């Protein structure tokens, strides 16, 4: 378990050390139906939930040249819903004993003034995209199958084109730091999706 940072301030609400455990993969458009079918069978019985979200990634550049990155997301299908602001920490991929990528994660629900506010804080939008797809849950696990769309004209979420002919598949769990046993569950769940999808621990660094 990580030692808490030295300068811990009294925090009035929220949990400090939440970690996101993540496995990623993709599925071709023509195999989407089979995957959804399988997920409907495997996951908790809930009404099928779809979403259409617009995500904007904001950067804050400091003097040390260490930009700080925040993600602001909002639903296109229900515009009155709160916005979702997310911070993601550095991923820990090196540890072979873990079956999933692990990283720090802070989720904040905010009012709709978020873009203006981030701008005032000094953040600038770096890129944006639209994600449309399906959400499934199994216990504390969450499976998101989504198609990514490139935004052609900045800010106009109507004018988009698909990024590829595949859907992104992500399996994630949010847990307090140190609960590595969740990655076991995730692995066994990922096994059940083979050979349709191979969910893996992907280090994004490798693809730059």
């Amino acid at each position, binding site marked *: 378990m990580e030692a808490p940072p030295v300068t811990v301030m009294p925090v009035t609400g929220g949990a400090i050390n939440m970690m996101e455990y993540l496995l990623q993969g993709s599925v071709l458009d023509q*195999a989407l139906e089979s995957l959804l079918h399988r997920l409907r069978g495997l996951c908790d019985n809930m009404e099928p939930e779809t979403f259409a979200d617009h995500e904007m990634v904001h950067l804050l550049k400091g003097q040390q040249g260490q930009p700080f990155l925040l993600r602001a997301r909002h639903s296109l299908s229900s515009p009155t819903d709160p916005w979702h602001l997310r911070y993601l920490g550095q991923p820990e991929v090196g540890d072979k004993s873990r079956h999933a990528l692990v990283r720090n994660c802070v989720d904040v629900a905010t009012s709709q003034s978020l873009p203006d506010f981030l701008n005032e804080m000094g953040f600038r939008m770096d890129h944006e*995209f639209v994600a449309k797809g399906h959400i499934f849950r199994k216990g504390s696990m969450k499976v998101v199958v989504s198609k990514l769309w490139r935004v052609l004209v900045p800010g106009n979420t109507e004018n988009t084109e698909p990024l590829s002919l*595949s859907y992104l598949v992500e399996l994630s769990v949010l847990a307090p730091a140190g609960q590595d046993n969740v990655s076991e569950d995730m692995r066994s769940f990922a096994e059940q999706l083979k050979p349709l999808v191979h969910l893996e621990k992907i280090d994004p660094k490798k693809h730059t």
Partner: protein
Amino acid sequence: MREHGRGQREEKQLEAATESLISRVAHLKNALQSFIYKLEHEYERLTWPSVLDNFALLSGQLNTINKLLKNEKTPSFRNQVIIPLLLSPDRDEDLAKLTEQRVPVFSHEIVPDHLRTKPDPEVEEQEKQVNAEAARIGPDVAQKQIQTLNKLCSNLLEKLNNPREDRDSENAAMRQNKQSFNPADTNALVAAVGFGKNLSNTMQTKCRPPGPVAPGHPGQGPMMTGGPTLQQVTIGGTPSHQGAIGGPVAPQQPGQPGKMPSNIKTNIKSASASMHPYNR
């Protein structure tokens, strides 16, 4: 004396046969009991193989009993006569104990059921009818009917078996030929959500994953006239998505300049922004 001796020997044989029959039947009973218990109480954990095992055990025991009865040394039970000597409406503790409390009284009511050697008269009548029916049909007709039934059964079996083969072959084909995912797409998508590769308005590395090419960019390749042809070659030649090899990326324009004016502007900006975290 000799007569007597033979009678004694027969009696002994009968006794021994009865003893062994009783013990075999007791075994069978125990096996049945335990099986029923399992079915009733452990059905959640009971696997099909273990059910089959139980059946095998039962049939084995039944077989031994049959063998025992057919054995030469076993006197014919059929020739033995049992006569109820005393019927009583009172409870007989010994009897109850012997029968595990199943038959507490040896009375008029139950004796006809327990000592019966023939089926009910109605059942007998029915059996007679069936036998008569069977006799009425000649052996040829019966043979024909048997054949028809066999044919039907084999047809049905074939029909049931075939789809399974089809399905199996289908699955196998899918496993071998049709991939349901594309690893290159996975990488492209992860890179896109991770740091906006191929998405951003400021970064135009425009390198495409080797997978399916997204529609909407017809202006790639031969349509290019003049302009940054060198980059064009790089794009075409780069086998993977590793487009940005070293240094801030120079503006690469896959489409005709007139087609995507917005991209040009942002490209220039990105070229100057050497601070950008995503460009080495």
